[in-house]
């Protein structure tokens, strides 16, 4: 329970940041706003990681998500969205069923979480050790195979992304046999 | 009690015919590539068939010479685990009960093989194509398969293996009768008879028996106690016949559930008995036999009568007498009565037959009845007589069917009344028929007599004195048998020669080399049956119930 109040405050702040970002992503009418709101979520989650003494994950979260994924998404938004169309750049459908589904799912998860783990408290160390070197050890010993596999995956993704993004659609492969799709 | 492998001779013997099958198949497969002629394939398969049969016979003789007679132990055992999960073993071996049948198998199949080739004699007749020229390689493949099945049946000591071989016997026979037998014909009354009808009748009948046997086998397996396989694996149940015998003797099955108010042992006894009695064949399950015999080609009749009927009797000896020994006395009277019905009924029905082959077929029914009676007597003379009758019938009935084949090959009819005075034209043949008939009607000095007299003697000595009445009734058949054989003899061979048959010719060399050895054996075992007794007595007599204090058996 040491240093708890700081942690509690930090937790609520970071959780609010993440959730607010997520809400904006969900409800904003502009896709650009959504994309930027996503930033908040990512940072908030990274903070929560840090709060959980998962320093390496937090750093990676920031680097990969904020520095990589988010940038990609913004590029995509910019490449595809007709920004000039104004506020309604991020149209939605079926809000009511979506809302219902969201609430049902949220309710379920929250209730479950609270029922299962609500009263449980955990001792957290004052100065938890860095996780970088243990994780490095793990990655190169116990998880060496997934590690290598995922590196191969990354290579494949690299090549695949390049191929897909740069390749021309083959004739007839675009599903235009019936000529329905707008050009 | 556990017999490890001592010799692979028996396995070689059982599967030698399969090697032959492989060779025939190989040649058939290579035929298009090597451009072999049809005639070559035919002659090759005939040669292979003859050689394999001869080889089996030679191995059987080798086993005979190596068999120690004064022991009831399993000899020439070959024992290995086959399907570990179900406790199934490959366990073959011979004891006194089976050795004589194995030898007989070799002999009868050799005779059948020789009778199946068109060589060494005239068979050309454009109007009546002979079976031995029809789809030859297929015939020989099935023939050899049948031999494997029969040998396996006689030597299996694992119930599951026994059942497999039992079924292996069934299918080739079906095709051999159906395809190479008489073509379908319409009889009076619009009934269709002929090879296919006979084959399907045979098949369904024996299959019905097999089903009962299968049920009994599974029931016994399910209720059998824990055992060990030959390699030491412990199993919950067992198929090993010797182990099962011991368990039955020890009363392990007394806790098994009753079936229809019968104890478990009695219930499986009945199921197995009916299953085997169809093959014997026992009244009233005998009607497949005349049809199958009449429409089967000669060598197949020979094998059917000479060996296949014996598998049923063998089953009774091995399972009903040996394994279910405790229920045997309970059933003896019924078996005896059925045996006598077989004997007398078969003999009477014989007398009314117009077709020579049918007559011989019914005479088989009659003569197999002796085996049942001898078994039921449960005296040393009775059971030995039963086995000897199996053996002697296994020599005599092939002779009779070969004889029927001889005249059918020439005259294309077997209608007894249509002949007459053949003795003038075919003296050698007549002499052979006379010998075979006399042997079959139990003339002393020929093999048939020994079996009959022992069965009757044994029946008279049964603990239940009512058996004496049974024997008195059964022995009436000696009169009836003499009546129908001599009457047949008179109608076919004596009197004035019917001019229609003036063109017939006497026996050829192929018929001689099948008939003369059998005739010689008939005489030999009639005057000196001890070799067979030496084989079977020790094993058989150990199985008989000991009656309180009486030694007079």
């Amino acid at each position, binding site marked *: 329970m040491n240093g708890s109040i700081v942690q509690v405050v930090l937790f609520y702040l970071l959780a609010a940041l993440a959730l607010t970002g997520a809400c904006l992503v969900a409800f904003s009418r502009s896709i650009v706003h959504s*994309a930027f709101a996503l930033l908040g979520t990512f940072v908030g989650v990274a903070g929560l990681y840090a709060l959980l003494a998962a320093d390496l994950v937090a750093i990676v979260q920031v680097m990969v*998500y904020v520095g990589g994924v988010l940038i990609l998404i913004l590029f*995509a938004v910019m490449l595809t969205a007709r920004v000039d169309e104004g506020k309604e750049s991020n149209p*939605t459908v079926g809000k009511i069923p979506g809302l219902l589904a969201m609430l049902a799912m949220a309710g379920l998860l929250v209730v479950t979480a609270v029922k299962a783990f609500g009263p*449980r*408290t955990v001792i957290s*160390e004052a100065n938890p050790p860095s996780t970088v070197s*243990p994780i490095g050890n793990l990655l190169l010993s116990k998880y060496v195979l997934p590690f290598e596999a995922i590196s191969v995956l990354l290579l494949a993704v690299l090549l695949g992304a390049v191929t897909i993004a740069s390749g021309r659609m083959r004739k007839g492969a675009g599903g235009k046999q019936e000529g329905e*799709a707008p050009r | 009690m556990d017999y490890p492998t001592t010799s692979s001779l028996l396995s070689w013997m059982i599967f030698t015919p399969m090697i032959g099958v492989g060779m025939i198949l190989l040649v058939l497969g290579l035929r298009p590539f090597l451009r072999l002629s049809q005639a070559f394939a035919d002659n090759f398969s005939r040669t292979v068939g003859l050689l394999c049969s001869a080889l089996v016979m030679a191995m059987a003789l080798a086993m005979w010479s190596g068999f120690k007679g004064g022991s009831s132990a399993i000899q020439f055992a070959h024992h290995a685990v086959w399907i570990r999960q179900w406790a199934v073993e490959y366990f073959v071996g011979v004891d006194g009960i089976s050795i004589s049948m194995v030898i007989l198998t070799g002999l009868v199949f050799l005779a059948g093989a020789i009778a199946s080739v068109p060589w060494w004699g005239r068979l050309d007749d454009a109007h009546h194509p002979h079976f031995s020229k029809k789809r030859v390689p297929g015939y020989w493949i099935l023939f050899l398969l049948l031999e494997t099945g029969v040998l396996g049946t006689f030597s299996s000591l694992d119930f599951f293996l026994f059942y497999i071989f039992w079924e292996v016997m069934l299918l080739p026979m079906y095709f051999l009768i159906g395809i190479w037998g008489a073509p379908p014909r319409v009889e009076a009354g619009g009934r269709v008879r002929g090879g296919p009808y006979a084959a399907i009748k045979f098949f369904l009948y024996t299959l019905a028996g097999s089903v009962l046997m299968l049920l009994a086998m599974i029931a016994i397996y399910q209720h059998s106690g824990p055992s060990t396989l030959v390699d030491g694996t412990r199993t919950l149940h067992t198929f090993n016949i010797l182990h099962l015998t011991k368990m039955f003797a020890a009363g392990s099955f007394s806790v098994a559930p009753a079936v229809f108010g019968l104890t478990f042992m009695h219930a499986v006894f009945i199921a197995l008995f009916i299953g085997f009695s169809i093959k014997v064949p026992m009244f009233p399950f005998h009607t497949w036999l005349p049809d199958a015999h009449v429409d089967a080609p000669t060598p197949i009749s020979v094998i059917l009568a000479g060996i296949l009927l014996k598998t049923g009797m063998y089953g009774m000896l091995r399972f009903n007498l040996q394994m279910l020994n405790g229920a045997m006395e309970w059933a003896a009277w019924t078996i005896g009565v059925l045996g006598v019905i077989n004997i007398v009924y078969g003999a009477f029905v014989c007398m009314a037959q117009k077709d020579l082959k049918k007559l011989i077929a019914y005479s088989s029914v009659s003569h197999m009845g002796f085996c049942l009676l001898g078994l039921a007597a449960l005296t040393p003379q009775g059971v030995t007589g039963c086995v000897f009758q199996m053996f002697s019938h296994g020599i005599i009935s092939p002779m009779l069917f070969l004889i029927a084949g001889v005249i059918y090959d020439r005259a294309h009819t077997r209608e007894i009344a249509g002949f007459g005075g053949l003795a003038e034209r075919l003296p050698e043949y007549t002499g052979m028929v006379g010998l075979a008939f006399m042997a079959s009607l139990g003339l002393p000095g020929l093999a048939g007599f020994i079996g009959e007299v022992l069965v009757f003697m044994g029946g008279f000595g049964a603990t239940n004195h009512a058996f004496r009445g049974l024997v008195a009734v059964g022995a009436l058949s000696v009169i009836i048998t003499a009546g129908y054989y001599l009457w047949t003899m008179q109608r076919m061979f004596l009197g004035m020669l019917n001019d229609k048959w003036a063109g017939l010719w006497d026996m050829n060399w192929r018929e001689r080399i099948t008939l003369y050895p059998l005739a010689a054996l008939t005489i030999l075992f009639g005057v000196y049956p001890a070799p067979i007794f030496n084989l079977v007595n020790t094993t058989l007599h150990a199985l008989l119930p000991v009656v309180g204090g009486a030694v007079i058996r």
Partner: protein
Amino acid sequence: MSIGLGHYLVVSGLLFSLGLYVLITRKNAVAMLMGVELVLNAALLNMVAFSRLGRVGPDKLDGQVFALFGIVLAAAEAVVALALVLQLYRAFRSVDTTETTDLKG
């Protein structure tokens, strides 16, 4: 009062639900991709929280390793997905998933 596993799970559950909502309601493929990222983040948060606060004990880092792998996978997925989106855009001149329904049965 302290922050336990339940709190993190509640946050993660809400994140997940919002991501789901995005997935259900958005028509824009890129926006849906954002939803996916939200869901993924929720999941990863769960893992790290369990790794730290779950019954396995604090010195077990497997959950964090999973989270790392998850992040990498998410990145890879995002890359491929965006490439696809680009291609989709080229083909249909739109990233509106309600319009690109050529494969419907």
